[in-house]
Every structure is written in structure tokens, then in C-alpha cells.
């Protein structure tokens, strides 16, 4: 969590951690998944679908999410719908996505209110009649993230034999494109298995897989 550069977004976004980063920190993936699921059920964290890759899930503390969303929609016309959403839906339903019937019948939202929520950026369209939970203003984060990931991967790709020692990679100067920090991206690449992690006598080596 400390790795996330808050200053960059002027406090408008809550700190987002990716699931792949959690995998690189916890050695056993199944245990990590189960613990995340427990936390999600207890309501401590929310899992959000990040648009660029169906597998990448962002993890945010519920408290942070709530404060940021309220701050983002202060004074805007859709504030009322958003507050109602935060108060009624978030504690009740811990899922990633919501369906049309669920919203109208169980929670009593009208279509216009749902449109407000989509305008506010809290919901993103998934399918006809179903929505993903989203973070308002996450577009910039996703843009920096995708560019940064590609940049760090290309640093490994350009190295001789397509492999780099972890310590050497972290010691290099980050290219301008990488706004979120090298360590943030390295954790994500290791966890998503986009690089192979090999332990050698001089430390961990990151190597691009064969294919």
C-alpha cells in the first residue's frame, strides 16, 4: 500500500493494489485467494475490475473507497444517487458486478439513478443489463499502469539474454513513462507470471518466458 504514489493523483484516487502484487508477496496463491475472499466477505476491501485485462483485479480498502467517492461527487447533480448507492448497496452486496434486476428490485434504483451512477463513474457497463463496480477517475491510473508495465517489461526484453537481476533493475533510473514506481510494477509482473523468477547466487533473476 505504501508503494502507491498518492501525490500523483492529488488524493483523488484511493490507493489501489493489484491481485498480482499480492501473489508476489504471499508465496502460496491459493491461500492468498482465500484470504482475499474472506476479507471481501467481511467487507474490509472491495475488488474492482480494471478494464484492460479481464484477469486484473484491483483491491481497495472500503473506507478509502467510500471517502474518495464521496469527495469526488460532492456538489455534483448525481450526488444523491451515489450516496444512496454507497449506503445501501455496498454493505449488502460484496460482488464485483451488479445485474439489472438486482438493482431495480432488491435495492430500488430507477433507471435514471443508474444512469447517474454510470456518469459518476461508480459503475461501468459490462453487458446489456449488468455492470462492474468501478472507481471514478481510475482512467488515468489505468493509463499510467499499462504504459508503466510495458516500459518495465521492455527494460527486461532489451537486456542481453532477456534477463535482468532484480537488484540491477531496481537500481536503474525509471524511464519517464513509469509514474507509479519501479517496485510497484515489478511486484505486479512477478505475480502475474509475465516474468519468470529464478533464484541465483547473486539474488533473484527476472527472465522473460520462452514463448
Amino acid at each position: 500500500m505504501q508503494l502507491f504514489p498518492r501525490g500523483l493523483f492529488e488524493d483523488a484516487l484511493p490507493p489501489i493494489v493489484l491481485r498480482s502484487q499480492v501473489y508476489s508477496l504471499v508465496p502460496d496463491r491459493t491461500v492468498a485467494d482465500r484470504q482475499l475472499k474472506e476479507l471481501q466477505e467481511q467487507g474490509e476491501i472491495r475488488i474492482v475490475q480494471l478494464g484492460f485485462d479481464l484477469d486484473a483485479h484491483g483491491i481497495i480498502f472500503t473506507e478509502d473507497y467510500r471517502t474518495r467517492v464521496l469527495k469526488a461527487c460532492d456538489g455534483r447533480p448525481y450526488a444523491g444517487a451515489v450516496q444512496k448507492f454507497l449506503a445501501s448497496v455496498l454493505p449488502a452486496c460484496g460482488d464485483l458486478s451488479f445485474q439489472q434486476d438486482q438493482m431495480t428490485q432488491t435495492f430500488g434504483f430507477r433507471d435514471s439513478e443508474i444512469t447517474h451512477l454510470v456518469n459518476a463513474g461508480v459503475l461501468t457497463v459490462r453487458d446489456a443489463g449488468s455492470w462492474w463496480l468501478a472507481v471514478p477517475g481510475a482512467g488515468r491510473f489505468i493509463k499510467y499502469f499499462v504504459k508503466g508495465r510495458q516500459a518495465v517489461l521492455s527494460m527486461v526484453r532489451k537486456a542481453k539474454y532477456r534477463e535482468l537481476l532484480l537488484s540491477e533493475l531496481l537500481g536503474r533510473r525509471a524511464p519517464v513513462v513509469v509514474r507509479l514506481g519501479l517496485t510497484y510494477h515489478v511486484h505486479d509482473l512477478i505475480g502475474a507470471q509475465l516474468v519468470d523468477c529464478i533464484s541465483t547466487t547473486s539474488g533473484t533473476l527476472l527472465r522473460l518466458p520462452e514463448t
Partner: protein
Amino acid sequence: MLGFLSARQTGLEDPLRLRRAESTRRVLGLELNKDRDVERIHGGGINTLDIEPVEGRYMLSGGSDGVIVLYDLENSSRQSYYTCKAVCSIGRDHPDVHRYSVETVQWYPHDTGMFTSSSFDKTLKVWDTNTLQTADVFNFEETVYSHHMSPVSTKHCLVAVGTRGPKVQLCDLKSGSCSHILQGHRQEILAVSWSPRYDYILATASADSRVKLWDVRRASGYLITLDQHNGKKSQAVESANTAHNGKVNGLCFTSDGLHLLTVGTDNRMRLWNSSNGENTLVNYGKVCNNSKKGLKFTVSCGCSSEFVFVPYGSTIAVYTVYSGEQITMLKGHYKTVDCCVFQSNFQELYSGSRDCNILAWVPSLYEPVPDDDETTTKSQLNPAFEDAWSSSDEEG
């Protein structure tokens, strides 16, 4: 091992424990062995393998050249070096051979007198093993990707067939015609599998990323669609449930039928509880899957912690089923591996790939301890290999 044997002998432990411990130890030592070979008959890649469940002695293989070969796996010679010979084959000169590639072959589950094969030429053929003639042919409108017959059922002889169309067809062997159609998928069906626990439960996997469980006796449709996010179950939610984020290529029930494994082109493998359709969230990591048609993988049977063998590019990855840990990658094939089967009596794995080879992975045995006797070692040496020079300085 000696501890297990003495415990079994004195009755302190159940005999099954020794068997399971030894099976697990053998599976962990699987490797290519220079003494074991399978005769090479196929001229094209091998798409499917099946070992008969009765004795575990005969294996069928189906290739992309339409040829079906029957091998005898048993080692009846006394030597350790053994090639599994082909007993017979349905080659290109047979009048009833499949015109295009054979996708799935399966032995009749109750004896070896019959087997079924389905192919891209839109037919499912039922063969009599002794005469090698087709006993029956079922024709479909689309290419057949996969078929399966229930391994435990005594009440019905239905063969489930998955084709390029979105409907699953059930063909009855007794009457010789298609008895029902299961509707519910939206794209081609890449894999079908009956449950080894219940007679009437069928799982189907399709390119529209959904896996559905059916009870074929019910008229109203599928029982459950598996959802990877384990969201709330309600009628409205069903339409958006996806098991994977890409096509679902392969299905395999564990040998007790309580869990189902699925692999998809999103490079993930998932384990599901087959009674309520819940994702058990066991994470196997990235399981590379680039196959455009079905991928046939298999689960071990009779070990204390079951293992799943999945073709991963040109290697086979071995994982423990319930904890998701990767044990090893079996490297040996030259091209992509398409199918693998596990022989549970001897804990051997056979795999077929696009390089037209079938490799046998055998548990590595202990090296025989060399005898201290010099005479025995000398007599084993072939006179042609003996040195003719002597190390002494004098001419001798």
C-alpha cells in the same frame, strides 16, 4: 516404506494407506525411461488416447490422419526393455476409416469388445474390436469436437456429443438414433464429460466461456452454470456467469466425481465443487493454453493427494489438485502435447503430441545395487566390447 510394510503386517494401519503412499511416491518419480517405448504408427499428430478401464492393458489412439491404432501395454517379455506393440489398426486403406482427423476415441466402459470414435468428418462411429468393422454410424450436421460415454452408468447407453453447433446431442446406442438435444450454450461445444459418480449428470464446456452441468432426465434445461466469481445465485444472474475469461477447452472430473477441473484459453485452470458449482479458488498459476480445439488432460487415481497432468505447450505440467502446487514439468516431446492418459494400475502416464509420438512416462525405479562379485560383472560384458590391450608393460 519398510515402516509402512511392517505396520500393515501387524495390522496397525489400513492396507489402503500403504497402497496410496506407494502410488504417490511413484507418481512423484515419473520420468522418461529408455527401456519403455510405444511403437510409432501414426503419420500425423495424435489427438486422443484412451486406456480401457477394465484391465488397463489396451490403449487406443486417434490421430489427425484419421487412423486409429490399438496398443497392448502389457509387458509379457521378461526383459526390462519393452516396446508397446500395436495389435491392430484402422489405417487409411480400411473402407470405413474416418475421412478427416479423429478427435476423440473412447473404449466401451464395460468391456473391450467395442469402442467409439468421433471425427471432424461429422460422424461418430461405433466399432466392433474383434472384427474391426463399424457396427453403427451417427451422422451430424457439424464437425464433432468431442464425445463421451458414461463410465459408471448401467441404466443408459447414452453418448454425449459436442459439435460445432451450440446444441449437445445425446445418442442412444441401444436404439441407434439421437435421443435428445440439450440446449443452452451459445457457441461450439469443446468438451463433454459424464460424472463418474452419478449416472445422469453431464458437464459441458463451450467456446462461449461457460460450463454447464446438466441432469439429462430433466426437461427444463441445465442445472448450474459455473461462475468464476462465485456471485450470488439468482435467476437473473445466470446469463452473465462465465467459468473462464476465454474459451473453455477441457473438462475432467476427479476420480470420485466430487470435483471438476476446467481449463480455458485465458491460461487458467479452475477446480469446482461439482455438487453446488462453487469455485474452490485453488490457484494453479498460469497454465498456458493455446489450443483451438479441446485439450485432453487427466487426473491420477489412487494416490493420497491426487495429481492433475495438463499438457502445457510441449511439456506436461503436474500439479496437486487440491493445493494448486506445481510439482514438475515433464519435458520430452518436440511439439505441442495434445492429450495424456494415466494408467492407475502401474502409475504410468502416456502422452500424445503433434510430433506423431506417444511417450510413456514411467516411475523411476531404484538402480540395481552393483554386486561385489567380480565374476558376474565380467560375464555380462559382451566379448566385442572387451579391451584387447593389457595394462602391463610386457607384451601379453
